[in-house]
């Protein structure tokens, strides 16, 4: 096989547990973002837009939805004779074989994939982040510095530096120290989890470290080891939009920022397109009774109700009299007549019955998982059903095919008060 200058490995096995029911049945990279996209579309599109045509996607946690989305890579033009996209799942080997125990361990377990491609450089990415970046520029920087490793960094406010892995660098941005979550930060260059490794060095480092650390990790083990060995590590400063949507609130917030008239993250540029699964992209229809403002609406929606300051995925149906406000409604949801949804996230293919209200009442944190649901946002899971005339409060979780009997009868009718959860185990398990 022709030797490739750089191939990419995309770590897409993370759960993203603080996203609650949104990652109940899918890995975080498969969560929707900005209406029609999935989080993984951003690094995948960056790869093809940067001229990288060989991408290995490492999956582990709930890979079905991710595998289905990526397929053979058609949306990203990654269906190639040579290279293209390859899903790399943990697997058994003659003697051993285990789940991926750390970021570097995951790469180590796929040495065979790397060897068969035998590239000059390896780009290691996370499938969790939303940004547009030209990796070709980063590679040029890597080569210009004759670097062994180049790490993309973001300049964060100094007072927040203590939450990140921080690179301390000299005047040429050569890294002399890496500190994970420093109490007294001396620099504000935070690692974005994007690395370019010289392949021969990566091989050597992975082999060495995996003998010592069974949970070999780039931040914790590999980078400190290479610094100790006085390798040439450089920080590549990235100055544009980059988001890690780790929590329900930050996920909601990052989506809402796209609605601004001039958002920081612009999806409307012609020459850095974000690609996503594109089997059917019909227009959206706005009915006679529709009222829509400050919102983003994806293909194939049919809207007869009112949508304000919200994000709609593909093929969402909003019936007459329904009001959607400050909410994220994902692909193929059905919002019934007269339903009122305020500050909620409705995952794909959910059915919200007629005259359902979501988001009323006091802001009480969720009783079962207060650390996840505490921002006033209620979440309805994938394929869930809320029957007609039910009222759901704030910080609630509804998951599964719920019936009237799952809700409490009060003087206001059937109700799930703020902080409550209705979780129905389906046959497939949750």
């Amino acid at each position, binding site marked *: 096989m022709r030797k490739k200058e750089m191939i990419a490995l995309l770590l897409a096995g993370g759960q993203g547990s603080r996203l609650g029911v949104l990652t109940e049945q899918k890995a975080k990279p498969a969560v929707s973002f900005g209406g029609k996209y999935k989080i993984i579309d951003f690094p995948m599109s960056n790869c093809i837009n940067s001229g990288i045509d060989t991408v290995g996607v490492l999956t582990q946690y709930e890979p079905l939805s991710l595998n289905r989305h990526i397929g053979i890579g058609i949306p990203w033009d990654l269906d190639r004779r040579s290279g293209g996209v390859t899903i790399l799942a943990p697997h058994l080997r003659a003697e051993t074989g285990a789940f991926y125990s750390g970021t570097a361990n995951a790469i180590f377990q796929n040495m065979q994939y790397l060897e068969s491609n035998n590239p000059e450089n390896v780009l290691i990415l996370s499938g969790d982040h939303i940004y547009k970046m030209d990796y070709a520029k980063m590679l040029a920087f890597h080569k210009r510095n004759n670097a062994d490793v180049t790490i993309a960094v973001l300049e964060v406010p100094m007072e927040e530096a203590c939450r990140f892995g921080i690179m301390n660098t000299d005047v040429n941005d050569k890294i002399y120290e890496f500190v994970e979550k420093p109490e007294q930060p001396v620099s504000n260059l935070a690692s974005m989890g994007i690395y370019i490794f010289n392949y021969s060095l990566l091989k050597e480092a992975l082999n060495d470290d995996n003998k010592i650390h069974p949970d070999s990790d780039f931040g914790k083990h590999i980078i400190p080891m290479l610094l100790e060995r006085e390798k040439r590590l450089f920080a590549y400063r990235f100055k544009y939009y980059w988001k890690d949507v780790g929590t329900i609130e930050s996920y909601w917030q990052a989506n809402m920022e796209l609605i601004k008239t001039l958002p920081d993250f612009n*999806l*409307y540029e012609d020459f850095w397109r974000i690609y996503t699964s594109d089997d059917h992209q019909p227009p*959206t229809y706005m009915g006679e009774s529709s009222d*829509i403002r*400050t919102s983003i609406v*994806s293909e194939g929606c049919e809207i007869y109700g009112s949508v304000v300051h919200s994000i709609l995925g593909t093929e969402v149906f909003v019936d007459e009299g329904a009001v959607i406000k400050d909410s994220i409604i994902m692909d193929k949801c059905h919002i019934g007549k007269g339903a009122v949804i305020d500050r909620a996230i409705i995952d794909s293919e959910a059915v919200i019955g007629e005259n359902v209200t979501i988001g009323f009442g006091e802001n009480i944190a969720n009783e079962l998982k207060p650390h996840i649901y505490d921002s006033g946002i209620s979440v309805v899971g994938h394929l869930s059903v809320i029957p007609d005339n039910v009222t759901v409060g704030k910080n609630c979780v509804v998951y599964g095919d719920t019936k009237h009997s799952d809700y409490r009868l009060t003087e206001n009718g059937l109700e799930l008060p703020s902080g409550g959860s209705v979780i129905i185990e389906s046959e497939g398990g949750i």
Partner: protein
Amino acid sequence: MRALGIILAGGNNEKLGVLTQRRAVSALPVGSCYRAVDFTLSNMTNSGINKVAVITQYHSRSLHDHLSSSTWWNFGRKQGGLFIFTPYVSNEGSLWFRGTADSMYKNLIYLKRSNEPYVVIASGNAVYKMDFNKLIDNHIETEADITVVYKDIIDEDFRNYGAISFDETGRLFNLEEKPFEKVSDQISLGIYVIKRTLLIKILESIIPEERYDFVKDVLIGHRKMLKIMGYKFDGYWRAIDSVDNYLKLNMEFLQKDVRTLLIKDQPYIETKPKDEPPVKYNYAAAAKNCLVGSGSIINGNVQNSVLFRRVYTGENSLIKNSVIMEGCYIGNNCIIQNVILDKEVVISEGKSVIGTPEEPAVVAKGEVV
């Protein structure tokens, strides 16, 4: 595979004016994200016809652009494929197609090298959804030599179509192209099924006699010799044949039944994907009874209109009963009413373009108002 397909996409139509100044009718954008040829192409692929030739002649650039990859319609496979035939120059001189039959004769090798028993021939100018399998089944059942698809005239202008009639046994009695008076209650849809070997035989016999037209020389000329039968189509069908009819058919996409049939129901009509971002509605937006293509940014008021992809509308602008094609920019404080804006038109701030439903105003591609 039972049949191969031929799509006749070479034509121009004077009545469409500037809309087809630089493109074939088949390449005309319709219904917010499609081009006319998508309907016949998708009908073929959805009916299991996976070897299709598109024959072009008139201003074929935009059609070629649209058909740049055959994968969008699921062709591009090891079996079958999408073939595009244009006139070319040879030792015998320039080979312009002298008629529809001639355009097939010039590409006879496509027919000869295939082994599918039947050929479905259709025009690329119509908007409809048809299962060609049913048509072929009917052709086989009636033991016809040629089957012609027809429909009852509902509100079509009979002067634009071929008036067709059948005798009591169902055989073709008469077919008259674009008559001045109404001679029949039925019109031909320009969709035919014929056995491949028979088509080759007929073409080889008529072309040396300088007979080049499929309707005149193959159908009418052989109506006594061959068993030419009809197949009635009752579904939605519209050909693009004039400016006001073009506006009307786009407006019909707003009707629930038409929209559901053409956009929502499977099998889908496929088109070249553009990977545009979602539509963005800013704070001053209002959109009622309209289709909006992806990548658009709406600041104004849009009513009863079909907007294609990547349309920008400014604040305090009104767009009503109009078709706005891909990439148009409409500034602030504009009024656009009963108008067809071809692609990439710029309407400067404060300008208005107003037509009537009978005579919509048309702004040519790329113009700045």
